[in-house]
Every structure is written in C-alpha cells, then in structure tokens.
C-alpha cells in the first residue's frame, strides 16, 4: 500500500473516530451537568411522578407528563405520516410517470430545508386558529396540532428513504412479474414492499428520531401545560419544549439546571434505545428468514 493511500486512510479513520467519540463526549457532558440531581430526586421518582415545580420550595422534578407528551406527539406524527409517506414512495418509485416524479422529488427535498421555526410559526398562526374556530375550542394548542405539523416535517424523510429502498430492489423481480403476467399493483404491494421493508423501516426510525427531538414546532404548538395528557387532543409539554423553555432562565449549577440536563439525557437515551431495538429486531428477523 502506498504512503498516500495510507495517509488518506488514516485521515478518514480519525474523522470517523472523532465523530463517534463526539456522541460519547456529549453523553458524558450531559451526565456530568445533570450531576447530583439523580441522587437527589431518584431515577424512579424522576421518571414516574407527575409534579414539575422548579420554583417551589423544595422544588419538585418529575417528568412523567412530559415523557407521555413526547411519546404522544412523536408516535402521533408517525401514525399520520407513515400511510401517506409509504403510499407516496410506492407511487413515486413504481407508478408515477418519470416526468412527474422528476417534478415532485425536488419539491419534497426542498420541504426538508424549511426551518422548523417557520413550520411552527405557520402552525401557530394558521392551524391553531383554525382548530379554535372550527371545533369551538377554548384554545387550539394541542398534541394533535403538534403531531400534524411534525408529520408534515418528517414526511419528506419517509418518502425519500422509502423510495430509495424500493428502487434498490433488484430489477429481476419486476421483470419476472411482467413475464408471469402479474399485475403491477400486486408486484408493488406483495413483492417489492416486503423486499424493501427493511429500508422503509429505517426511514421510519429516522423520522421518529427527528420527530421526538424536534423543538421549535412543538414548543409553539403543544400548549406547554404540565398535566399528563390522556388524549391526543389534550395539551402537553414534550421534553425538548421543556428544555428550550426553561434552560435560559435556570441558573447554572442549581438543581433546576441539573434537572433540565437530566431531561436531555433521558431524551437522548430514548432515541438511542429506539434505534438499537429496531436494529436488533431487524437483525433477528433477517436471520429468521
């Protein structure tokens, strides 16, 4: 191997290590900043009680309402986005005329470039008002409103990645279908989708990670109340909104500040756990086939 090749390898290897280390350092830093709060409140209390009162004496830090809100909002967004996303991906990959697909794809890609604060602002001025007027609600902020806007935000991710997965299925399957006289619809739904399902689920995980961590849009739409939401149409305060709202005014080093970092740690752990479990699931599934 030439020296030049070695140097290039070393360079990229270092970059790969640095980015992997970054995750470790971030986790370590957040854990360090959250510090004494874990012992003070207790992990179980922190996760399962429902009172968040940073200004009370003594302050109380429990994030169950926010945890529930986060899951409502993220899964709600997926429930809305997945059917549309998959359907749109199948259409683009298999049925759409080439000219139409060439037109739609860049538009979808551009959607991903719209800043989330713009989505949030649109939602706050248009969607909230619409919900208030048409359903005669006292106030339109709700987990549903946040889910709806989040769904719009993750839709392009789901479509683009699912479409790629579908396109990477080998051409032979399509040719065999045509040779056997199988309808195009049957081929797409019963043959291509099962073959591409791993990539399509990957798209969903990516969307979930984005939905659960999205801050600005949910901050402006979810209402940020501290009650446990028992319905999709209740208000709630997802974890990222809690952190964004209160971190600015929390004095560094206080238990309030530590509790917010602990909240961030929980948020990261949720994303990592979802990623790992889906990957494990897919791995077992493939071996089982």
């Amino acid at each position, binding site marked *: 191997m030439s020296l030049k090749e070695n140097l290039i390898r070393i360079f990229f290897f270092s970059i790969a290590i640095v980015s992997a280390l970054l995750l470790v350092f971030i986790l370590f830093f957040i854990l360090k900043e959250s510090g004494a709060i874990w012992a003070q409140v207790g992990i179980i209390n922190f996760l399962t009680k429902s009172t968040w009162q940073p200004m009370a004496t003594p302050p109380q830090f429990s994030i169950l309402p926010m945890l529930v809100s986060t899951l409502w909002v993220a899964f709600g967004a997926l429930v809305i986005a997945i059917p549309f996303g998959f359907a749109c991906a199948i259409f683009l990959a298999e049925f759409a005329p080439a000219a139409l697909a060439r037109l739609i794809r860049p538009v979808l890609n551009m959607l991903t470039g719209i800043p989330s604060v713009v989505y949030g602002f649109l939602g706050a001025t248009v969607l909230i008002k619409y919900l208030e007027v048409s359903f005669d609600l006292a*106030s339109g902020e709700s987990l549903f409103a946040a889910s709806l806007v989040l769904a719009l935000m993750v839709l392009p991710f789901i479509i683009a990645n699912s479409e790629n997965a579908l396109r990477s299925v080998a051409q032979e399957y399509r040719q065999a279908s045509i040779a056997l006289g199988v309808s195009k619809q049957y081929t797409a739904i019963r043959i291509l989708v099962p073959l591409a399902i791993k990539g399509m689920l990957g798209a969903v995980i990516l969307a979930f990670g984005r939905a659960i961590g999205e801050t600005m849009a949910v901050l402006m739409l979810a209402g940020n109340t501290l009650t446990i939401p028992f319905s999709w149409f209740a208000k709630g305060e997802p974890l990222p909104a809690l952190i964004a709202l*209160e971190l600015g005014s929390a004095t560094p080093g206080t238990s309030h500040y530590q509790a917010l970092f602990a909240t961030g740690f929980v948020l990261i752990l949720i994303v990592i756990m979802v990623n790992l479990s889906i990957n494990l699931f897919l791995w077992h599934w493939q071996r089982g086939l």
Partner: protein
Amino acid sequence: MKKSKWVLFLVSALILGLLLISGCANGQNSGQANANNTIKFGGSSTLAPILAKCADDFTEEFKTWQNVDSNLPDEPIVIFVSTGGSGFGVKSALDGTFDFGMVTRDLSADEEVSFSDGTIVQLGSDVLDVAVNYENPLTKVKTDLSIEEIISIFSGEINSWSELDETLPERPIVVAVRDLGGGASIVFDDAIMKGTPISTGALQLPSMGALGGKIMDNADTIGYVSSGLVNQNPDKLIPLSVDGIAPTIENINSGKYNISRPLLLVSPQTPDKYQAAFINYLKSDKGLKVVEDLGYVAVGQ
C-alpha cells in the same frame, strides 16, 4: 498488513491527541486575550435588544473611543451583546466571561453582596399588566380584579368566566403564562401568587410576544404581558387594574403598582473608563429613549 494497522492506529491517536491539546490551548488563550477596549455584555434576553440597539447607535455615532472622550485612545469601539438568561448573566459576570451581566429580576441577597463592591446599574423596569382580549365580555363588566380573584384564576381554582362573575358567559378561562422560573413568572409570583402554584393547565408561551399574541387572538385568554406590548396594542389588549390600582405611569413610578422587575447591569468590578463612558451613554436621554421605545419604563433620571 498487521504492521500497517499499528501505524494507522498510532497516527490516528497522535492526530486525536493533537486535536485535544490544541483545543485546550485555545481555551486558555481566549481567556487571557481580553482586550480591555471591548465591552462584553451577556445575560437576559429581555435586556439584550436594548443593549444591542444602544451599542449600535453608540458605535455609529462615535466610531472610535477618542470621539467619545478625547482622553481615550484612538481605537475602534467594539461592544458584544449575547443572551442566555438572567441566571447566566449573573454567573458569567462573576466568573469574568462577560464584563457585565444583564439581569432582569431582583437580585438575591447573596448576589447583592457579590456585586456590592462593583456595579449595579438600573436602566428601567419591565412592568407586567394583567390583560385580556378586547372582545372579552369581562371588559364590559369590570376592569378591576382583586388579588384573590387573580390568584384563583391563575391557580386554576376557577375555570370558567361565569364563576368569576355571574353575568359572564360559561366559557373556559384560558390562562396564559411565561415559562415557570423565567423572569416574568418570578415577578408575577412575588407580586401576586406569593408561592401559590400556577395551574398545571396554564399555557406556557415561549416569548412575551407570543403571550401577547395569544391574548390578542383568543377572546377567552387572560395573562400577564409587558406594559410595552399593551401600549403598542391599545385596541387589542385591555389591561386590568389590580386591587383598584391601574398600571399607569404615575402608579408605576410611585411604586403603588408593583408587578414589575428591574432591568439591571451588574459587574463585580467598578467600571473602567471605557465602560463608564458607555454606561453614561446608556443612562443619557438617548439610551433611556431606547428603553422606552422597546416597551419598558425607563428609570427616572
């Protein structure tokens, strides 16, 4: 092949090490390279726009320090303003990250002591009005709430306008507040709630603008907003009197109306000649006009 892997590992480790070391070295340098003709402000996001506007005007008007005061050297004026909350302002002023902390709440007793040998400058006050939407029927019945009534509304004890007054419609009360623990919510707690927790069903809005906007958009909403916002939207936001005291300039300046917080600049050191020149500018008519233009009550001269 095995040997090349070792080389790969070693060189990678070396690069990483160098990166880490250079990172540390940079940190030390920036701590020392604190040119004393620049002024750095950090802290409350309420004060930041005021300071940024004043700093712009100041730099625009004078360009170099010599034009401000002929005793000062002929160096360009550089003023940094960055935000991070009042708590961050106090901390970074104490540890020297910034020359001045911007704080928009009353200082705690401990903080008062830390800055007693240094500088505490008040530029004005941020006054909170309890306000409702102009379409709210309440404005036709009464424009005065007692402290007890306000507490029962904001703590969630009563949830419907009809519970407040029988002639009002049976519509839910939407309580809108700023984030718990933020400057505005602490002011409101000190002046009105006195420790009674805000209802868990209250909407928390991420900014004063959003809070004002919510009240302007929604006829059932009640909330506390900066007096500046009320003055800018006199047709849409109706301020209420508290225990018979209206939030007028006279009542605010006489201290009768007390739902307010000071706008403070703090530093553990006494200002040097550059800083003193800029602070004099802030306290001049030009500086205080900016405070008023942005919706706050400027400190009396």
